[in-house]
C-alpha cells in the first residue's frame, strides 16, 4: 500500500471515533506462541495413518495404544486427540468453552519468523501494510470510549508489534513494580516535574511519558489489596504463569483492561522436539496448566474474557533428520471464551500432503486466513462493528467460532 493511502487510512481512524463500537468491558487476552508451534502434535490427527508414517519418532501415540497410559493422546472425537499434556484444558473443551480452528495461517511465503510474526501482529496481508498493529487499530476504534492507561498491557519487557501505534500501552511483568522509587519520601513532587518535562517533548516521548505517569496513579490504588487467585487456582511457576496471574488481577480490578498480550517462547523445535514427552511437551504443559488456572481463577468473569492463542506458522508435517520439524504453514488456533461453538475442531483438515517449493516452506495447507479468526473475535466478543476498520480491504470468511444469537 503506498504511503499516502496508509496515512489517509490512519487519518480516517482518527476522525471517526468510536461510534462503531459498543459493549465495552471485555478483555481480549492474546497469547502468542513464538517460534512457530507444531500444533499437529498438540491436536493429534490420530486417525490419519500418514501422520504416524511421516513422524516416525515424534508422533504422539494413538489414544488406544498405551491404554490411557501417560503417553497416549486424549481422544476428542473419531479423528482428533489432545496431546497428553493438554489434559488440563480437556474439561474446558468438553464444556464447550474452547474451540480449535484448524488450518489457519497467513499468505506469507517467506517462512521467516520475523516477517510472519510482523505481518500477523500488524494484521496485514503479505507485503501490504495497513499501518501499526492490529490491536492498536482496534483500540483506536475505541477512542472516546474511556481508554485508560491500563487499556493495553503487555506482559514482559517489550511492547509487541501488535500494539504498535496503540494509544497507550504498557509493558510490565507485575503490577507491584509500577512505582517511582524516589530518593526522598515524596514521589509526587517528582511525578509532577516529570509530567511537566514530558509535556515539553515534541517527539515520540511525550505520549509514553504521560501514559506512564497516569498508570502510576492508577496502580497505586490497586496495589493496596493483596491478591489471592479464586477457586484454589494454581498458576504454573513460570514467567507465563505469573504473567497470566497478573492479567487476571487486572481483569478483576476493573481498571479498563481491553487488551492483554503475553508470549510463550521456545516453539522453534527444529531439533529433538520430542513427542508425548520432551521439549515441546514441556511447553504444552506450561501452556495448558496456565490457561486452565486462568480460566478457573476468572470463573466469575468468564463473560468478560476471551483468550486467543496463535503462533506465526505451523511446522512441516514430516520430521527432519534431527528429530525435529522445520518451518511450515498452517496451524491450529485456539479460542477460550463463553458463547463459542466450542468442544469441536472447527475448520477442515487439509491432509498431510506437502506443497511444492513455489509456495515457500510447505506444511499443512492454509485454508483460513488468520484475520478471519481475529475478525470474528473482535466483532463477536469485542464489540467491533466493522472489521474493515481493523483489517482494511479484507473480506473475512465466516468461521462460525461463536454462536449466533
Amino acid at each position, binding site marked *: 500500500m503506498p504511503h499516502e493511502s496508509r496515512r489517509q487510512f490512519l487519518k480516517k481512524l482518527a476522525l471517526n471515533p468510536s461510534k462503531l463500537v459498543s459493549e465495552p468491558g471485555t478483555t481480549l487476552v492474546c497469547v502468542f506462541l*513464538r*517460534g512457530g508451534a507444531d500444533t499437529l502434535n498438540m491436536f493429534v490427527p490420530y486417525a490419519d495413518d500418514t501422520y504416524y508414517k511421516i513422524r516416525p519418532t515424534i508422533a504422539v501415540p494413538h489414544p488406544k495404544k498405551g491404554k490411557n497410559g501417560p503417553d497416549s493422546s486424549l481422544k476428542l472425537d473419531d479423528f482428533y486427540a489432545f496431546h497428553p499434556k493438554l489434559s488440563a484444558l480437556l474439561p474446558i473443551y468438553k464444556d464447550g468453552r474452547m474451540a480449535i480452528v484448524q488450518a489457519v495461517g497467513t499468505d506469507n*511465503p*517467506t*517462512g*521467516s*519468523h*520475523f*516477517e510472519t510474526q510482523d505481518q500477523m501482529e500488524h494484521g496485514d496481508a503479505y507485503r501490504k501494510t495497513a499501518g501499526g498493529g492490529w490491536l492498536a487499530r482496534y483500540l483506536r476504534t475505541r477512542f472516546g470510549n474511556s481508554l485508560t492507561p491500563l487499556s493495553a498491557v*503487555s506482559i*514482559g*519487557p*517489550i*511492547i*509487541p508489534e501488535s500494539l*504498535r501505534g496503540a494509544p497507550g*500501552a*504498557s*509493558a*510490565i511483568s507485575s503490577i507491584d*513494580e*509500577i512505582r*517511582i*522509587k*524516589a*530518593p*526522598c519520601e515524596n514521589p509526587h*513532587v*517528582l511525578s*509532577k*516535574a*516529570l509530567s*511537566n*518535562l*514530558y*509535556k*515539553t*517533548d515534541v*517527539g*515520540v*516521548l*511525550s505520549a*509514553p*511519558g504521560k501514559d*506512564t505517569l497516569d498508570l*502510576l496513579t492508577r496502580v497505586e490504588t490497586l496495589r493496596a489489596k493483596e491478591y489471592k487467585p479464586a477457586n484454589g487456582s494454581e498458576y504454573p511457576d513460570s514467567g507465563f504463569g505469573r504473567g497470566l496471574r497478573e492479567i487476571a488481577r487486572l481483569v478483576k480490578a476493573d481498571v479498563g483492561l481491553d487488551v492483554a498480550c503475553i508470549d510463550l*517462547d*521456545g516453539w*522453534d523445535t*527444529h*531439533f529433538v522436539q520430542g513427542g508425548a514427552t520432551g521439549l515441546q511437551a514441556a511447553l504444552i504443559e506450561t501452556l495448558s496448566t496456565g490457561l486452565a488456572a486462568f480460566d478457573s481463577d476468572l470463573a466469575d468473569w468468564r463473560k468478560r474474557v476471551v483468550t486467543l492463542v496463535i503462533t506465526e506458522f505451523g511446522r512441516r508435517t514430516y520430521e*527432519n*533428520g*534431527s528429530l*525435529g520439524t*522445520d*518451518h511450515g504453514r498452517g496451524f491450529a488456533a485456539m479460542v477460550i471464551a463463553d458463547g463459542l461453538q466450542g468442544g469441536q475442531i472447527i475448520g477442515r483438515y487439509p491432509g498431510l500432503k506437502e506443497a511444492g*517449493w513455489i509456495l*515457500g*516452506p510447505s506444511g499443512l495447507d492454509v485454508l483460513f486466513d488468520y484475520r478471519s479468526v481475529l475478525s470474528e473475535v473482535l466483532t463477536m466478543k469485542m464489540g467491533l462493528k466493522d472489521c474493515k476498520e481493523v483489517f482494511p480491504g479484507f473480506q473475512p470468511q465466516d468461521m462460525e467460532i461463536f454462536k449466533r444469537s
Partner: protein
Amino acid sequence: MKVTRRDFLAISGLIGCSLPLSGCSNLNGLIADRMGGGIPEKLPVTNDPQIDPVFHLLSRAGFGPRPGDIERVRQQGTKAWIEEQLEPEKIDDRLCDLRARRFESIELDPGMCYEFKREVLRKDLSRYHLLRSVYSKRQLLESMVEFFSDHFNIYIEKGDCIYLKATDDRAVIRKNALGCFRDLVLASALSPAMLVYLDGKENKKEGPGGIPNENYARELLELHTLGVDGGYTQKDVYEAARCLTGWRLHSGKGRGTAYFDKSLHDDGEKVVLGAKIPRGGGAKDVELLVDIACRHPSTARHIAGKLVSHLVSQEAPPALTKRVAARYVESSGKIKPMLREILLSQEFRSSAGLKMKRPFHYVVSCLRATGADTMAGDQLLEYLTRMGHGPFQYPTPDGYPAEANPWLGTLLWRWNFAFALCSNSSGAAKISLSRLWSAVGLNDASARSNAAEILFSYFVGRRPQNSELAAIQEFADQRNLEDEMARAELTGLILSSPAFQKV
C-alpha cells in the same frame, strides 16, 4: 561501596603484575587517576541551543562522553579522533582492562568454559560487555561490537551457547567488528556458538533424500547478508543449507570446537543465487557460499542501510546509504571505509538528538556522564533485565530491536535507575555528585540558582529550551539544594528527561 572498592584495589594489584606496565609508579598513577573519580577539576558547559557536534559524535559513535572527553576530543579534532578510533589496537586501554579483564571465563577456550557454572558464565559475559562499554576508550569498537552482537545475535540460554559465546565474542565479533564483513560472516558461520544457536551442527546429509536443517541457512540470507527483500528464493535457502551440511562440534577432546565431517556433507553440485558451487567442494563449500552472499549487491545495501540506521537515523537517508554501500563494494566489504563515510557525512552531523537510546545505551551513558564507579554487578544487570535489554538475552536471531517503539514502555525503569544512581542507592554504581557539581561550577550556593540550566547543558550537550528549563526549574525551586538528596533528585530528573533519552 567500600567492599567493591577494596576488591578492585586488590585485583588491580594482581593484574598489575601481569600487565606490561613500565613500573609500579605508572600503575599507581593510572589507578589514582581513576580513583580520583575521573572527573576533572573543571568541566566547561555549553551554552549553545544546538547539540555540540563533539557531544553528538561521542554519543553516537560510542556510549556518550565521560567527564573530560569533550574537551580532549575538541582539542584533538573530530577527524583525528575518528581515525584514532578506527585503529583501536593503538589506543591504550589499560584502565578498562583493569576492570574488565578480571573474568577468567572470558579468555578461555570454549572447552574450558564447561568447567564453569552457567550463572558464572552469564554474569562474566554480561559484566565484561558492560564494563567495556562503560570504560573502554575504544568507544567506536564497542559500539560496533554492540551492533554486530545484535546482527549476529546469539541467545546464550539456548543449548550450550553460554559455554561458547565468550569465544564467539572474542574470535568472531571483536576480532572482525572493524575488519572485513566477509570474514565476519565466515567466522560467524563456523562459530561453535552459532552452530548451536541456529542448529548448524545438526545440519547433515543422512543418506539419499536426507533433509537438511535450514535454520542457519535461512538466517544467513535473511538477516546476516542479503536481507529479507534481498532477492533470494526458498530454493536458495535449501541449496545454502546443503552447502553447510557436515559441520559438527567435538564432544570429547576439544569439546566445543567445530570440525568438518565429510561423511555428513552433501557433496553434490549446488546453485545458490544463480552461482554454481561445484560438486566435491567439501569444507570449502561454506567459503564459496559466504563469498557469493557477501558479494551480492543486496548485501551491500542491507549492511550499509543497517549501519546508517544505527549511526544516523532509523529511516536511513537513501543517498547516504547508497554512498556507504558503494564503499562496501569498492573495498570488498571493509567496515572502516563505511564508518568513515558515515561519521564524516553531513547527514550524520545534522542528525543530533533524533534517535532514542535503547536501554543499554541509556544505562551506559548515565554511568559515563556521571563518571560512575561500577564493577557491573548483579544490581546493574537487574536494571538492564528489567528494561528488557540484558546482554545476549534476546531469544530470536534478529537481535534486539533497533527502533524506538518497542522500548517506549521502559521509561519508568529508566527513571528509577536515574534516581537510584544519583542518590547512590542503586547498589550498581557509585558516583561522586559533589565532585561533579563542583566541576560544572555549582559548588557555591550563589551559583546553584542556575543548577537546572547548567546540569541540563552538561548532560544533554545543549542548553535547555525555555519550556524544558521551566519544568526543571520549578522542581529545583521547591527543593533545598543544600540538601544532598535534593541534588540527587535534580540530577536524576535531568537524566530522566526526554532529552537525555535521546541521542
